[in-house]
């Protein structure tokens, strides 16, 4: 009796295990936070140097469209205007996501709700396989198939936002699809059964019950896809033309943040304006994906609240 009483009050192996486990998990999380903080700090400190050390005005950086970090304009100001690249980056990302989303969700619905097991079993690995194709390969396929195709139809050189969009469309398709499949699968089976039992057609069930319940997950899938598109460098670089020009239409050569970054970083000297200006681009890239994230989280949260009500 007394023995049990004292054991109730004393810590045991189980308590120590729990402390141990918690310590491990907390340090892992801590490490991740540290990494993120590190990245933010390093890139911010490098990227802000353009403005603090080289005296470039932040506003000019965002709104001007002349990018020649090595040269000065007639007033003696460095020419670092990133607007064309920002606009292009956004255009290709959003267009690619717009294009890919219906296909991806269609495929995901097919795999989870319509296809028999064999169909889904076949599609799944194929899609997972595509995630692993290196972007270089996409780039070269884009260069040898898509660019001539666009040139043949729309004229011009074939390089431009449209080609970039098409390449990115194929690249983000597997990402969005496989994540959409996950989120559709997580909708409880009984939702679907209940709806069917009430006499709803399959499409009504999919549209009104399943897609609605999975909406936040689908949104996340699209964001992940967009994130990949936004940050994609090597493939886009090959088909977009890399000209720092304000995009006038979808088939004129343009340049994204990432393509500029990869083409030039190796040629610049650490600590000089051309180098810092590139880090500023990286900072913009970082900042925009951050913003992206927050906006979508916000939307996702509102969606959740609505669903609960």
């Amino acid at each position: 009796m007394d023995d049990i009483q004292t054991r109730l009050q004393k810590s045991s192996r189980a308590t120590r295990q729990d402390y141990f486990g918690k310590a491990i998990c907390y340090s892992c999380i801590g490490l991740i936070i540290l990494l993120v903080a590190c990245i933010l700090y390093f890139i911010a400190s490098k990227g802000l140097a353009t403005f603090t050390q080289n005296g470039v005005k932040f506003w000019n950086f965002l709104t001007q469209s002349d990018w020649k970090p090595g040269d000065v304009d007639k007033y003696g100001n460095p020419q670092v205007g990133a607007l064309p690249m920002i606009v292009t980056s956004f255009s290709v990302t959003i267009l690619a996501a717009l294009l890919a989303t219906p296909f991806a969700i269609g495929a995901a619905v097919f795999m989870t709700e319509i296809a028999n097991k064999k169909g889904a079993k076949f599609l799944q690995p194929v899609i997972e396989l595509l995630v692993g194709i290196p972007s270089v390969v996409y780039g070269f396929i884009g260069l040898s198939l898509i660019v001539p195709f666009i040139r043949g139809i729309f004229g011009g050189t074939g390089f431009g936002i449209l080609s970039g969009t098409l390449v990115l469309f194929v690249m983000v398709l597997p990402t969005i699809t496989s994540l959409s499949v996950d989120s559709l699968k997580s909708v409880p089976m009984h939702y679907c059964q209940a709806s069917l039992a009430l006499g709803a057609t399959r499409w009504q069930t999919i549209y009104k019950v399943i897609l609605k319940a999975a909406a936040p997950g689908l949104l996340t899938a699209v964001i992940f896809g967009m994130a990949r598109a936004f940050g994609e460098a090597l493939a886009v670089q090959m088909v977009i033309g890399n000209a720092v020009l304000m995009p006038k239409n979808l088939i004129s050569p343009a340049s994204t943040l990432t393509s500029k970054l990869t083409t030039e970083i190796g040629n610049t000297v650490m600590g000089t304006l051309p180098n810092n200006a590139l880090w500023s681009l990286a900072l913009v890239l970082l900042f925009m994906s951050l913003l992206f994230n927050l906006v979508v989280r916000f939307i996702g949260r509102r969606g959740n609240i609505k669903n609960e009500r």
Partner: protein
Amino acid sequence: MKKKTIISSLLALGALMTIATGCSNSNASKSSSSEVSGKITAVGSTALQPLVEKAAGDFQKDNSKINITVQGGGSGTGLSQVQDGSVKIGNSDIFAEQKDGIDAKKLVDHKVAVVGMAPVVNKDAGVKNVTMDQLKQIFTGKITNWKDLGGKDEKITVVNRAEGSGTRATFESAVLNGEKAVKSQEQDSNGTVQKIVSTTPGAISYLAFSYINDKVEALSIDDVKPTDDNVSDNKWKIWSYEHMYTKGNPKDATEKFIKYMKSDDVQKKLVKDMGYISTNDMKVQKDAKGTVTDK
């Protein structure tokens, strides 16, 4: 639990390995025997990288105590790292004097090869020869159609090289005379440029000799053909050196390796294999400002 232990012990092993290699590195550079030994890291120009890599491989066969690591990263990277002293050799396509932020006085230049570059056009254009002035007008955006040069009625698509790249610096200093290039597509690498020019009608760009093949049309300038011979006596004006920079005069292993790079073994064989021109074959020399003098 077993899995966890394996993972953690592997992690620990990894950490140990890191530390140990760190130690062994410093040991290696300290120990000095009669035979020259040491560790050389060469970083920089991706264009020069394969040549140095191959030469380093051959070199190490006879000098097993010297360990050479060759890495890419670009000319800017090479120059800034050798200036920092974090590597022994900085490979560059460009004179250190031409780079902002590099104090060329501290660095010693070792020219290991000469690379010639030629304007290339898509075969469609129907032009095989231009004058230097026409070439300049194309790249500054004053001539925009091939028919002005006696070719097809086709718009000229200028594909420039990445700003700050050695190739572009060489081309602009030889052709543009200080004028600014038209804003246009830019590509970083020879391979991509070659592919784009060969597939895009009306495209013009420029390539190192070694990348010119029968898929693109290399232009003659003022009826001078882009050949190694024409480069060696400066009849062909668009060429540059491949540099290996050291901080101060090279010592020990580094000295030996750079000597090897300049030796006939490398210059007569590897340099040619790579499509470069040997510095020994040059009858003229160029300084950082682009002034050419007889050797």
